[in-house]
């Protein structure tokens, strides 16, 4: 079976999306006094870092940013061949009564977001949770979950995969569609 790759977003386009998403966040969260960004491990943290940087660039605000790992809250444990190895959860602040903006790269089935919300609740009771994603693969949800802020909607088939690459790991920022 051959794999074909197609680039959906390049670095410039991702940067434009991040700028737009940041402005939308400013509209709703104003000075971010009580708001925090939390990236979903392993890949949502890079979106969160970019939003954090852009926010500082645009308005000088330094928003508190953390990372949440969902491994132990997933619903597919023992349904895969090997157990998933966890990533680091990094929340060195209280989320009690905070307005949380949960950040991930791709929204697909919605299962990871469900797990992330459950994982967050073990740290306390936030005032609210919103969801921000760079890419929304619409019409493919398994759960009733939608994002509040979306970088780009894309329509995909079930045999396609969307991957987001980041400078920190792969060397460039881009979003690709892989067809099996």
């Amino acid at each position, binding site marked *: 079976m051959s794999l074909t790759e197609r680039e959906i977003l390049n670095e410039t386009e991702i940067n434009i999306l991040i700028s737009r998403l940041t402005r939308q966040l400013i509209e709703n969260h104003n000075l971010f006094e009580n708001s925090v960004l939390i990236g979903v491990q392993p890949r949502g943290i890079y979106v969160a870092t970019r939003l954090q940087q852009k926010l500082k660039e645009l308005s000088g605000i330094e928003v508190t940013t953390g990372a949440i790992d969902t491994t*132990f*809250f997933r619903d597919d444990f023992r349904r895969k061949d090997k*157990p998933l190895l966890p990533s680091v959860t990094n929340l060195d602040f209280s989320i009690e009564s905070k307005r949380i903006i949960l950040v991930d790269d791709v929204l697909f089935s919605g299962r990871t977001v469900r797990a992330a919300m*459950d994982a967050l609740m*073990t*740290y306390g009771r936030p005032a609210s949770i919103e969801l921000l994603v760079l890419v929304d693969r619409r019409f493919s949800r398994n759960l009733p979950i939608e994002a509040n802020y979306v970088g780009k909607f894309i329509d995909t088939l079930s045999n396609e995969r969307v991957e987001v690459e980041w400078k920190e790991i792969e060397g460039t920022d881009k979003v690709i569609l892989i067809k099996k």
Partner: protein
Amino acid sequence: MNSLSTKHLLGIEPLTPEDIQMIFQVADNFKDIINRPIKKVPTLRDITIANLFFENSTRTKLSFELAEKRLSADVVNFSAASSSVKKGETLIDTVNNILAMKVDMVVMRHPSPGAAVFLSKHIDSVIINAGDGTHEHPTQALLDGYSIREKLGEVKGKKVVIVGDILHSRVALSNIHCLQKLGAEVKVCGPLTLMPKYIESLGVEVETNLKKALEWCDVANMLRIQHERQEIKHFPSLKEYTLQYGLTQEILDSLNKEIVIMHPGPINRGVEISSEIADSNNSIILNQVENGVAIRMAVIYLLAGKI
């Protein structure tokens, strides 16, 4: 690679260094979880674990039970003192009866060396050895190695001396395997009557002088004298043992360095270790207990993925 090389945890000897590092890495996450306001994750809610204790235990049994409950597994407990073992049932029959009640994993402590290995050959279930006689106590060694890594940054290159009743200690054997696999140097110290015959074949040096051993090491792991396993007298009196091998403030002060003090428990205060040392800042005895829960959660999590 994100899976252990083994289906059971029967001892440290069969594990690879990568297995041990993987367990440590996962334990880091669980240590974070058990320090949260809600110390529980739903991961193993569809798994049932039986804790079979054919020998007395406080710490290990509580630690396993807490680890299982914090992973949301269902737990059944069994101790030999109040069971049908007393009526003449064999080990395999006992365990098969328990498994017939749809148990997925067995944690077993048994007074006979090799009991866990034996069970793994006859029973179709994941087995975790929680101590088999004088053979191995793998989760203790893992939590000891993990505690050293936490305190000193890494285990590799560190010098560890294990002091006391090496002959009757499963903690010593598992620790030797674990520390060597992680690249530490290990010596044992104690009276020659409490040294196993072929201990040098494990690449371990024997030192009979406590002061010399302490001067050499970065970490001292003090073991209890296991009276319950001793059929003959191995030294004249407990008082004499304490004079020769008891860890006191005086002997620590005479070293010109700080060393980390460990003890797997239960402590006999005033015998192998003085009260002031056990409660001192150099002692990581209670950290070991805390880490025990995280390590056992990691082992159970990684093995449960294979059920």
